[in-house]
């Protein structure tokens, strides 16, 4: 038993509380929030090393043994996600120093980011289904505040919708928890998994699986349930948008993969349902991303496409496609953060997010242009950048499972994704310089985006180094026995 895995939850929690007390001292807030996120990064790196050497780590809170108390579990998948989360939060914080206005900073902006991190990392590392709900709510509460912070008309309007959608989803989540409690009589995810494998697949379990798909699909924005995402995310300012786009939807994806791999892995019906929904998500996301002329909207629709690709790989559920999905998940978090921060710099320079009114940025901002170009290629999955490996493995896994139509759609979606981001590059950076291109100091705005793009590049060329970690993460999804054994210590 080791408390190390609690630190990524506790550090932001304590720091968030501390930051509330001196909310007027902006400089201190900046330094402290950077420090705490940096510390979380260090802790998560230690954690990954430890999990690699010693297997899945667990902590039973208050020393109540596993099925009775609340367990915090960290396997390789959650540790990798926690690390990525903190890296993205670090870069978003760096961006926010210049990229967010003073009024927002004055109203608990940094404290709320810390609370958001509590919710996200907590959801990644909890081993108790009701506790997952609680961490979801922590995360959502912080996200409501972040979304409405600034008090503009569009923000108020979209936040109302965002909250109502999420309140209904949370209610359904509790319904799902209640059902699963009545069927198996426990809330510990490992014990639920064990009991379900004893009971075998029954009808009620399929109902619960679909209910969970509904709930997590709403958070993760899959096909029939993504309607709220483009509007709500479009209202937020860029750093918050980057944080949401990179983290919040991925928590939904993580929860789907965790619950499905632990609870419903015998139920092939829900997996094929998930696969079909994921493919439709890819198609609609791709259509949305080429339909708009607004840089924010284009990248937002690309989130939806990526969710589809990840979940398609997950629904195939063999070793190859699972490691592909995890690769793509990590890649997508990083590259989405980078792209949002880069278009943030574009919007800062030109003062508009409409592509019609921005062109010719290349001459004055070559660094921004080429970083964006690399990020765009990475998003579409051009080798040797990071998107390629994930997509390649997902397609390979789909071929092994004989799903040719699905792999065709995934390959085709890459073209549309490339088209949509290259449209930004061609219209925004090439051509005549438009009047609203000012000479503004953007070095500090570019730095975090460049860090993330560099990271994604390193992931792309360092696949060999990363792949043992990824396959360990895929293994823990593929073999729930290890997870159960680590939690229940039988």
């Amino acid at each position, binding site marked *: 038993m080791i408390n190390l895995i609690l630190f990524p939850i506790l550090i932001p929690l304590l720091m968030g509380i501390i930051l509330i007390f001196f909310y007027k001292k902006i400089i201190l807030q900046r330094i402290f929030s950077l420090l705490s996120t940096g510390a979380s990064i260090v802790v998560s790196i230690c954690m990954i090393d430890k999990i690699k050497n010693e297997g899945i780590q667990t902590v039973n809170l208050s020393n109540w043994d596993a099925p009775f108390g609340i367990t915090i579990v960290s396997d390789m998948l959650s540790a990798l996600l926690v690390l990525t989360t903190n890296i993205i939060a670090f870069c978003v914080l760096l961006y926010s120093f210049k990229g967010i206005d003073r009024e927002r900073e004055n109203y608990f902006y940094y404290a709320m980011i810390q609370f958001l991190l509590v919710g996200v990392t907590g959801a990644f590392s909890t081993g108790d289904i*009701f506790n997952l*709900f*609680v961490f979801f*709510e922590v995360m*959502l*509460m912080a996200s*409501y505040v972040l979304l*409405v912070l600034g*008090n503009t*008309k*569009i923000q*108020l*309007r979209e*936040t*109302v*919708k965002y*909250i*109502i959608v999420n*309140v*209904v989803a*949370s*209610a359904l989540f*509790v*319904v799902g*928890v*209640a*059902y699963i*409690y*009545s069927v198996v009589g426990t*809330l510990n995810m490992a014990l639920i998994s064990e009991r379900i494998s004893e009971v075998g697949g029954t009808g009620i379990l399929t109902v619960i699986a679909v209910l969970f798909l509904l709930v997590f699909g709403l958070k993760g924005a899959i096909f029939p349930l993504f309607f709220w995402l483009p509007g709500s995310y479009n209202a937020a300012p860029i750093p918050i948008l980057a944080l949401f786009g990179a983290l919040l939807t991925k928590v939904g994806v993580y929860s789907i993969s965790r619950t499905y791999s632990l609870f419903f892995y015998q139920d092939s019906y829900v997996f094929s349902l998930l696969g079909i929904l994921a493919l439709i998500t890819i198609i609609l996301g791709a259509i949305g991303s080429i339909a708009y002329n607004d840089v924010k909207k284009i990248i937002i629709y690309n989130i939806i496409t990526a969710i589809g690709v990840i979940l398609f790989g997950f629904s195939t559920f063999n070793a190859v496609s699972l490691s592909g999905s995890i690769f793509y998940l990590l890649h997508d978090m990083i590259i989405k953060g980078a792209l949002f921060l880069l278009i943030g710099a574009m919007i800062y320079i030109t003062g508009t997010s409409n592509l019609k009114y921005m062109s010719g940025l290349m001459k004055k901002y070559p660094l921004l242009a080429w970083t964006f170009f690399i990020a765009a290629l990475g998003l579409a999955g051009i080798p040797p950048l990071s998107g390629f490996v994930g997509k390649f493995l997902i397609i390979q896994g789909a071929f092994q499972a004989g799903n040719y139509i699905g792999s065709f759609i995934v390959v085709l979606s890459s073209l549309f994704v490339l088209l949509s981001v290259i449209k930004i590059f061609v219209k925004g950076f090439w051509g005549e310089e438009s009047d609203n291109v000012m000479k503004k100091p953007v070095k500090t705005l570019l730095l975090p985006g460049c860090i993330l793009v560099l990271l994604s590049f390193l992931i792309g060329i360092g696949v060999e180094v990363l792949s043992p970690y990824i396959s360990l993460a895929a293994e823990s999804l593929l073999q729930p026995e290890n997870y159960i054994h680590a939690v229940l210590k039988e």
Partner: protein
Amino acid sequence: MEFLMILIIGILFMCATYLILSKSLLRIIIGTGLLSHGVHLLLLTMGGLKKGAAPLLGQHAESYSDPLPQALILTAIVISFGVTSFLLVLAYRTYQELGTDNMEKLRGKKYD
């Protein structure tokens, strides 16, 4: 007893759905409140209602009620209370800024 509870939960869900689908923001908030009440009752019912004894009687008790659903409901109530109050404040601010609480009018390009 369980049957009665299920009927009540059904009615609460029905009313909540009706209210959430209406145009007025305040009705929607009342709807979400009713929805969370229904969910809490469901949580209680799913744990088993009446087993004839107090929750904690030691290891050798023959019958005892399950304390877990009540603990879960307590947590869920606190969360839904927090979210509902946030939503009420937000609805009030929205009404002040945009001058309407009609969800039909809260869309389109007007307030971009």
